């Protein structure tokens, strides 16, 4: 179906990240990584016009500025220092795409450490806000290097909370918990299964289901028909290429 070979893998990933924000009203979109940052902007300029974007520092901005825009070119609409970010997180008026060094079958994410936490093989950045984000508002993940090292049976340190762990922690943990999508360089995943385990939602064009299965360290739920990740519309492609990322930063993050 999708035969437009002119669309790059990074552009599919961008559109898949934009889809994370579909249906969102006036919420703060936070996005880590290039494809998520582009995706949030694309959603804002198309099907989610009420989204509120940040300048990556301490403010909310008008519209959807291009990647790498000079601060002097931004029009600010509100002050959003870190302390106020927590007000937004805890109010739930936020939709977030974080990155994951590891992610597992039930949606746990790890950005803390590889190996045993008490004396890790590799100390990563730390849990950051992942524990709080995941039990307070919708969270999705972006993994630009899908492999059996990043998609693992069980993460080493549960930073972002997945479905089983939230359920085990009780109603206060599940009340606002939602892991919406996982977007990787190979496909899009969700947890829309009876037992809330990861399901292959779509494969990016030119990727096979077998490739996804092989690169995944646990058993994925594979529907009988796996659609392709949708093509960007001509308007979206134009926005990505000429308005939001004319320098092509997206192509540095994802191998073609």
């Amino acid at each position, binding site marked *: 179906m999708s035969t437009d070979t002119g669309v790059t893998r990074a552009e599919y990933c961008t559109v898949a990240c934009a889809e994370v924000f579909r249906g969102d009203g006036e919420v703060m979109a936070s996005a880590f990584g290039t494809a998520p940052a582009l995706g949030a902007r694309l959603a804002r300029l198309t099907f989610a016009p009420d989204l509120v974007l940040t300048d990556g520092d301490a403010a909310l901005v008008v519209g959807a500025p291009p990647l790498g825009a000079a601060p002097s070119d931004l029009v600010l609409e509100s002050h959003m*220092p*870190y302390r106020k970010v927590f007000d937004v997180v805890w109010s739930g008026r936020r939709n977030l795409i974080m990155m994951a060094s590891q992610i597992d079958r039930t949606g746990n994410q790890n950005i803390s450490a590889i190996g045993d936490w008490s004396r890790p093989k590799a*100390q990563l950045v*730390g849990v950051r806000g992942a524990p709080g984000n995941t039990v307070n508002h919708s969270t999705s993940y972006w993994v630009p290097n899908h492999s059996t090292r990043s998609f693992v049976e069980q993460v080493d340190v*549960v930073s972002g909370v997945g479905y089983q762990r939230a359920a085990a922690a009780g109603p*206060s943990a599940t009340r606002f918990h939602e892991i919406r999508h996982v977007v990787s360089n190979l496909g899009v995943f969700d947890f829309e299964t009876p037992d809330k385990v990861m399901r292959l939602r779509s494969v990016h064009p030119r990727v096979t289901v077998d490739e996804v299965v092989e690169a995944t360290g646990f058993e994925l739920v594979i529907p009988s028909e796996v659609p392709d990740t949708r093509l960007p519309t001509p308007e979206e492609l134009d926005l990505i290429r000429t308005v939001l990322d004319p320098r092509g930063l997206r192509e540095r993050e994802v191998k073609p």
Partner: protein
Amino acid sequence: MSDKRMTLDELVGELRSGMTIGIGGWGSRRKPMAAVRAILRSDLTDLTVVAYGGPDVGLLCSAGKVAKVVYGFVTLDSIPTDPHFKVARQTGAVEAMEVDEGMFYLGLFAASQRIPFLPTRSGLGSDVMRVNPSLRTVTSPYDDGEELVAMPALHLDAALVHVNRADAAGSGQILGPDPFFDELFLGAADRRFVTTERLVDTDRFASEGPIQTMCISRLLTDGVVETPGGAHFTACVPDYTRDEGFQKEYVAAAGDPGAWASFSDRFLEVDEAGYQAATTQAGVERDERRAAEKAVKAGNAAAGNEAAGKGASS
């Protein structure tokens, strides 16, 4: 009004080994680095460091000053992790309390209000509860019956923050866009110290920025030290941005014992004035190197394909 001015040495003289010390700023932004460097030169040891961690944490770990780190992350912003903190964790050299960064905020907030804990949803279901077995939950006394994390107060023996302007009485002004959690660090501490880019007369604040920038009241401070460039190499906007070139040098040196010894010798085994002079000189040298590399590249390009190929591979 009492005069709270002091020197870096006097500030460090008020600290003791074994203390729990909170450090303001965030990641590699507006860190009280001059005070951190003064601690590096002191014989203080066995510290518990509480921070939205950046190179402050890494440097203190590298010098063996730290028994325990309380953090939600340690990052250099433009470089994801701090190399010394990584080593300290991976070799088990420091004890760690790693919590969600919102829990961290509430811990400081609770301490500043003199209450034992604050309830939060954050942390539930995550390994923060597993790796910190002392954390407890609390059940709402109201009809909802929600079970929440009881984030304990993060009480500090001392707090260090760095601001753009301050007066002799210890009021501080933050001119950058984000005051971070500096007010809460000060509020959570018994002894509170502010370092500042510039000491000014109080009546000068109004011409530097609007009332919202005068966010550290003297109710929260015991001592103030003028340390121009005192946040270097972290960002201290609008006075200066992060010194990315120097930060890269710091990270590169940390990866090699020999390189670290000469880095330390040149930049850390000197007093604050020596540090400022040495880093300025290092910036000049970096600029010269970059200019020389550019000239070589341009020369290669002009010399044709064959020579350019050799240049690129060397």
